[in-house]
């Protein structure tokens, strides 16, 4: 019967082309608007570490003095060098990484090539396993190399393509701000969205091209970039950053169980109390540790207008669906004579219901495909916008599937009431009135 229902649905849709076109247009517009904004929201609010984000945490401390102190004020978004190194060396987490962004002039040892600026990340060994970075060649550095401040680097596949034509460059030398670093690893393409581990560089900035041990970067005075917040005598002078009263580093830990997370928070509280007792911290001990998605949420990574647009588009889609329900109701009820004849000839209510639902489903499929095209067009328009996230607005496979499923599902839902009403028309009354 499926084939028969489909045949009947096609006939019916062809018979009232204008009404069919209106329904398809309503669904397509609703789906197009909805999927454009939902795709942007999906891209911006996605989990950058699927399956791991619940075990990755961002500890925060408050090392500031009492100036402008008010209970309940927000904690600094970054930590000081001293606290970072203390926490790093305590090894209380399963993994931990201290980091800061930078920018370096990069080139090979070939004197004939011109250097160019690339985004850099100065970090510690656990960065790579903790964030599960994919390697094409080689691997990251070890804690021993962190301690030894080795002249090593991991580069991105894009930089490897540019400097070494995509060949295995491990063992070769890359020059950063005039310093030779031995390439020990080449990443595969890796661009976590959002750029969660350092929001100071922009929530949706691209990934770095070169990764250097933090200690090495400090030794070589590689240029640092990102936010900095100082108090008291902290000046932000680059040569005194290790001792300055400034927060400028990001610190991430991996804690593989809730018990470990709870224990680490206790440790953090204890650490803050110790620092206060030692006179380094002045404010009452105040710590916080959010998991990755909690941190994204706290930092309001997804722009508010994107959420608003998504809600507005969903509202618009609801209006489109209500219109579709009205159009379908009119269409189906207009055919109550034919449906009554079918009932008289042996069609059960269920058969008539399925026949009409098939018709609604076909409107959904075509409306969904048209909506997909409109969403594609809408995303192209989004990408023309100057916003940093604009370039990320692309339909991916899950959103593509969701578009089609949403269109069909919503249209079937819209078809249920009209189909239900139509299949409950009393055939005897209809046939008598004819």
């Amino acid at each position, binding site marked *: 019967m499926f084939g028969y229902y489909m045949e009947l649905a096609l006939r019916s849709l062809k018979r009232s082309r204008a009404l069919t076109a209106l329904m398809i247009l309503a669904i397509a517009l609703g789906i197009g608007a909805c999927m454009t904004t939902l795709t942007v929201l999906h891209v911006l609010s996605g989990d950058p570490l699927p399956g791991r984000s619940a075990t990755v945490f961002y500890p925060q401390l408050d090392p500031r003095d009492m100036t402008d102190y008010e209970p309940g004020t927000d904690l600094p978004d970054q930590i000081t060098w001293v606290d970072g190194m203390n926490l790093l060396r305590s090894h209380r987490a399963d993994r931990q990484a201290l980091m800061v962004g930078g920018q370096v002039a990069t080139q090979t040892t070939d004197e004939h090539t011109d250097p160019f600026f690339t985004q850099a990340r100065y970090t510690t060994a656990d960065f790579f396993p903790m964030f599960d970075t994919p390697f094409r060649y080689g691997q990251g550095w070890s804690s021993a190399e962190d301690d030894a401040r080795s002249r090593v680097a991991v580069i991105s596949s894009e930089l490897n393509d540019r400097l070494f034509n995509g060949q295995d460059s491990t063992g070769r030398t890359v020059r950063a701000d005039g310093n030779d670093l031995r390439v020990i690893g080449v990443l595969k393409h890796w661009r976590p969205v959002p750029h969660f581990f350092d929001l100071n560089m922009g929530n949706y900035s691209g990934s770095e091209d070169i990764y250097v041990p933090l200690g090495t970067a400090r030794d070589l005075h590689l240029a640092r970039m990102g936010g900095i917040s100082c108090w008291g005598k902290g000046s932000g002078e680059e040569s005194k950053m290790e001792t300055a009263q400034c927060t400028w580093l990001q610190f991430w830990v991996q804690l593989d169980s809730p018990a470990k997370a709870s224990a680490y928070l206790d440790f953090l509280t204890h650490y803050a109390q110790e620092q206060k007792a030692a006179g380094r911290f002045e404010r009452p001990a105040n710590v916080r540790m959010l998991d990755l998605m909690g941190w994204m949420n706290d930092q309001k990574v997804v722009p508010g207008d994107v959420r608003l647009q998504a809600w507005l588009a969903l509202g618009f889609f609801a209006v489109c669906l209500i219109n579709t329900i009205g159009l379908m109701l009119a269409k189906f009820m207009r055919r109550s004579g034919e449906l009554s004849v079918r009932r008289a000839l042996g069609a059960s209510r269920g058969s008539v219901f399925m026949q009409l639902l098939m018709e609604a489903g076909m409107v959904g499929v075509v409306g969904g495909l048209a909506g997909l095209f409109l969403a594609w067009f809408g995303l192209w328009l989004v990408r023309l916008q100057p916003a940093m996230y604009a370039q990320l607005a692309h339909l991916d496979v899950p959103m593509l599937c969701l578009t089609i499923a949403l269109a069909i599902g919503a249209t079937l839902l819209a078809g249920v009431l009209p189909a239900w009403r139509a299949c409950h028309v009393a055939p005897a009354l209809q046939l008598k009135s*004819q």
Partner: protein
Amino acid sequence: MLKMTHLAKVYRTEVVETYALRDFNIDVKEGEFVAVTGPSGSGKTTFLTIAGLLETFTGGQYHLDGVEVSQLDDNARSRIRNEKIGFIFQAFNLIPDLNVFDNVEVPLRYRGMKAAERKQRIMDALERVGLASRAKHYPAELSGGQQQRVAIARALAGSPRLLLADEPTGNLDTQMARGVMELLEEIHREGATIVMVTHDPELAARAQRNVHVIDGQVVDLSEEPRFHAQPNVAHS
């Protein structure tokens, strides 16, 4: 074949109950050709829709081919309509955007019949009503008489035990009506049970037996005719 005993059909609103059928009794034997006659509003069509399981009844009993139908659900009633009953309507009720072949095919589709068997039955039915050559035509391309013949072919295609005809010649001119009536008589001679509702005495005279309905009840015309000045309405 069709037996109704003390059947009643009441239409209820908040303030009034209207009896369309009251203490309605009829027994149609297999192979009979019965004409149900009566004035407009007497309940003939209500009887036919109940007989065809398109409407439920309020009281009494109805046995169709030995089955008491009052407790059947929609699926069972639909199946009986599809397999045992053929309808012929005054307004033909062909589906305008289906051609003749596809119109005749409708009841067979709901029976889940295979394509080859459907085709054979459709062509046989169209041959029988003399319209095999018009299989690809649409209803709008046919005369009223031809449309009614298609409707008869549609009713016959499923080999029903019972044919229910509601004023089958009501929308036709005399010549076309004669042709349709001759076709029904021929079908009856071949063994079909036919119940035909009509208010045309000439047409009714061609049936084996006449049943007269007045005010929702079967009346015996041999008795003195009864006249009802008031509508059969009981206020609740």
